[in-house]
């Protein structure tokens, strides 16, 4: 879905604003949002792909004007409501009106370091042969305007070359939709600047994306 998150190659955003000696958090609430997001994720109602998709479904103007932690917060509220943990009425009143559904999954302070160190690897047991190998010329699919995808629109319908095989990974397009992990091969695919941006490309540049096998055809 080429929603507000699909920013690669878009013009009109002006210069990169770099803050000197930037603090890790700009306000206390940002750290709390980070923590709430990770703790809520541990409850297991949704996966990483569904949470990304919730952010990407926010309105364009909000997505582009909010701070990133505001995007996280709004998506978290959406997810908690969708999965029955915190209703809009509860948020409005600032108090719980019904018990939590999964208190047994609560992340205790003592377990934080272990959980963060473990992370959430997405490589899975290989159940299919690689459809492409390093050096293959490929063309990316057009992709769909609907549903979750990790194929950015600037790289849709473009020819490139496979430059790496990254592993057999969970397929976000399926995972975000709740239709299973559907793992598949993930490749590094490299495009020339000219292929992506035409004559206006900066000379001597290339871009590599990580592309799941369903995004690719032999060129």
């Amino acid at each position, binding site marked *: 879905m080429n929603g507000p998150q699909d*920013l*690669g*190659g878009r013009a009109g*955003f*002006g*210069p*990169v*604003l*770099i*803050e000197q000696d*930037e603090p*890790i*958090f*700009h*306000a206390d*609430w940002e*750290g709390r949002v*980070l*923590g*709430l997001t*990770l*703790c*809520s994720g541990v*409850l297991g109602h949704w996966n990483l792909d569904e949470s*990304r998709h919730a952010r*990407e479904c926010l309105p364009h103007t909000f997505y582009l004007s909010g*701070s*990133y932690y505001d995007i996280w917060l709004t998506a978290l509220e959406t997810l*908690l409501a969708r999965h029955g943990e*915190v209703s809009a009425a509860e948020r409005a009143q*600032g*108090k719980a009106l*019904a*018990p*939590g559904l999964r*208190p047994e*999954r*609560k*992340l*205790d*302070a003592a377990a*934080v*370091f272990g959980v*963060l160190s*473990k*992370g*959430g690897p*997405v490589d899975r047991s290989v159940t299919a042969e690689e459809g492409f190998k390093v050096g293959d010329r490929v063309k990316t699919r057009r992709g769909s305007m609907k549903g979750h995808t*990790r194929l*950015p629109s*600037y790289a849709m319908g473009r020819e490139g070359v496979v430059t790496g095989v*990254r592993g057999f990974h*969970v397929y976000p397009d399926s995972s975000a939709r709740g239709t299973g992990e559907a793992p598949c091969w993930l490749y590094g695919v490299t495009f020339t600047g000219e292929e992506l*941006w035409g004559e206006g490309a*900066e000379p*001597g540049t290339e*871009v*590599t994306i*990580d*592309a799941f096998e369903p995004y690719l055809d032999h060129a």
Partner: protein
Amino acid sequence: MLMHDHAHDNELSDQEARVRALETILVEKDLVDPGAIDAIIETYSEKVGPQNGAKVVARAWSDPAFAKALKADAMTTIESMGFKGRQAEHMEVLWNGGGVHNLVVCTLCSCYPWAVLGLPPVWYKSAPYRARAVSEPRAVLAEFGVELPEETRVKVWDSTAEVRYLVIPERPEGTEGWSEDDLAVLVSRESMIGTGLARSPGA
């Protein structure tokens, strides 16, 4: 462009109230331990940050066996230093040098190798960086004060899946025989994203 006042990631106290309300509800429901939030904040404020990545880079510069291992298996080698986990479950290492400069971006969100670099800065998550790093990387680099020789090839890596990238910048001249600890001081966060170079001694 340098920005001394940040205009973007600050918010009204309404926002504090909104977040506090959500936390209160989740704690009342026994779904969230406030101490866990504290521990997460402490982790990324004090323990996990670009100092981790800098240690990897410094060792890669000083220890040929480590560098070789890093090239062969980035994940395992980085984990051997104790840096692993969330947002670094799958790592690739990109070596600057030999006429190649690497630059990392996540155009679709703000994927970033937390375990070695900590949390991403606001500019990394911002629309201008995400939009332009792929289409005009040299112009972006110039805004960071990085001017590359014309013949240098710029390789941009868009983190579109769960693989996270760490750039190994070129080792500055005049650092022969330096200790890993001394070298690590030269390794800025930006140099490991590709929007900067390693600092030169005395710079």
